[in-house]
């Protein structure tokens, strides 16, 4: 049994009287300790697939059919309360624009502490001490001073580290990273990718990583799944995908990556 098994997932959007299919019969498996990269162009349904896992979809989206089994339990059959026990505790997310995903009126320390307190019955003082440790874990320098910093005081890379600290606060089994490095410059991107793979080794979670960049995929993936127009068109180990791409969209993505490589 894999950690996460998605079977025949369909997600539709309702706009007025019309329905659009965003995710169309997706099958996806993630094993423990594995990094699966979900690659594809914008609008291919990568993000919607990932948001479906703990049902944090936009209000206009509806999951039509399918099953999402996490540790053998079908998440689509759980109610709000059941999902809340999974969210953040077992499955955590990091997103693309870290500043936008942090509350502007609270310090980053208190936000990390909140992530701890949401699932663990701890007094605030202890949670704050733990938040400081977590900030050290994600390589934020001088964590004690930075506890009181606000998101607008920190750089994009720093804020992404804060997001990672919040996501890992309860030691989730699965981390879903939705283009976490797209808004960052290449140096910071490399640092964040390195940090993620180190943390994965020390903490032992599985990583579902969404990206449109095959260069990022090449650096971190164990396996790669390519999405195109709401469907998974190709899936395989990193070497299989890069060695012998079959679908034309995979070939396009690889060609784009190699073109950039040559420059």
């Amino acid at each position, binding site marked *: 049994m894999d950690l996460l098994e998605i079977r025949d997932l369909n997600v539709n959007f309702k706009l007025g009287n019309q329905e659009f299919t965003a995710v169309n019969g997706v099958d996806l498996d993630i094993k423990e300790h594995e990094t699966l990269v979900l690659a594809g162009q914008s609008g291919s349904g990568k993000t919607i697939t990932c948001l479906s896992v703990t049902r944090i979809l936009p209000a206009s989206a509806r999951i039509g059919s399918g099953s999402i089994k996490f540790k053998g339990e079908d998440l689509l059959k759980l109610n709000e309360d059941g999902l*809340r026990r999974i*969210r953040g505790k077992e499955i*955590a997310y990091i997103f693309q624009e870290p500043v936008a995903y942090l*509350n*502007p*009126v609270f310090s980053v320390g208190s936000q990390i502490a*909140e*992530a701890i307190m949401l699932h663990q019955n701890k007094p605030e003082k202890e949670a704050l001490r733990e938040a400081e440790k977590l900030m050290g874990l994600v390589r934020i320098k001088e964590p004690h001073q930075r506890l009181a910093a606000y998101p607008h005081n920190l750089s994009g890379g720093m804020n992404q580290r804060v997001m990672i600290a919040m996501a890992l606060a309860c030691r989730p089994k699965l981390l879903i990273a939705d283009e976490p490095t797209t808004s960052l410059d290449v140096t910071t991107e490399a640092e964040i990718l390195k940090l993620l793979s180190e943390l994965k080794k020390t903490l032992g979670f599985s990583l579902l990583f969404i990206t449109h960049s095959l260069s990022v995929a090449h650096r971190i993936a164990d396996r790669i799944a390519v999405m195109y127009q709401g469907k998974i068109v190709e899936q395989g180990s990193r070497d299989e995908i890069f060695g012998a791409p079959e679908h034309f969209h995979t070939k396009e993505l690889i060609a784009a990556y190699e073109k950039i490589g040559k420059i």
Partner: protein
Amino acid sequence: MNKLLLTGIIIIGILTLAAVFAPFISPYDPNQINEGSMLMPPSRAHLFGTDSLGRDLFSRMAYGARISLTIGLLAVGISTVVGIFFGSVAGYFGSWADSLIMRFVDIMLCFPTFFLILSVVAILEPSIYNIMIIIGLTNWMGVARLIRAEILSLKEREFIQAEVALGASHPRIIFYHLIPNAVGPVIVSAVLGIAGAILLESGLSFLGLGVQPPTASWGNILIEAKSTLGVAWWITIFPGMAIFVTILGFNFLGEGLKKKIG
């Protein structure tokens, strides 16, 4: 700091100090009737003069400031809490909860507030507490609309999605994450609302349905002033000026805050 804000803070600051230290700055007992000094014009002994029962007007107004400010603050406190609660619930949950609450707001807004308060006070007893509660419960609709609009846009923001993804509950998201981000305009409207509440209380007291004599309030000093307007101008002028300056002060404060945070 802008000039409006500064002027507002100074006016309200002086008034607040006068109200808090009323027993120390009043030269006489505000309810002490003195037959020997009826309708005395302002002098060194009686700074603002005396009324038809010989009571010192300055002392009565200092104690009246307590009543007016307390009623203003608490009435607005009640209306802000009620408004924030209904507005945030309506904005966050949407659908039928939103329709229900906002239609109720529309209904409440249909009543002419002053006459609604008049009839409620006529049925209940006109005490300070009743007045505060009634003013509070008839003035929360503006706050509710304001906070609903803020929450409608805030709840679509990414940090709320992140909070859901961390497993936060609805009450936690509303009260801990949304409301702190939405209170800016509410603070402004609350400060402006204090001015309105004070004016309302003065109006009610003037009609005899507010604070009951002998307790002094700026409004009920004016009732007595009405009958002696021809002979004792000071009983009308000073409480009238006090109300005017207070309203102006709160409006300055509110407008200043609006520029700063709204």
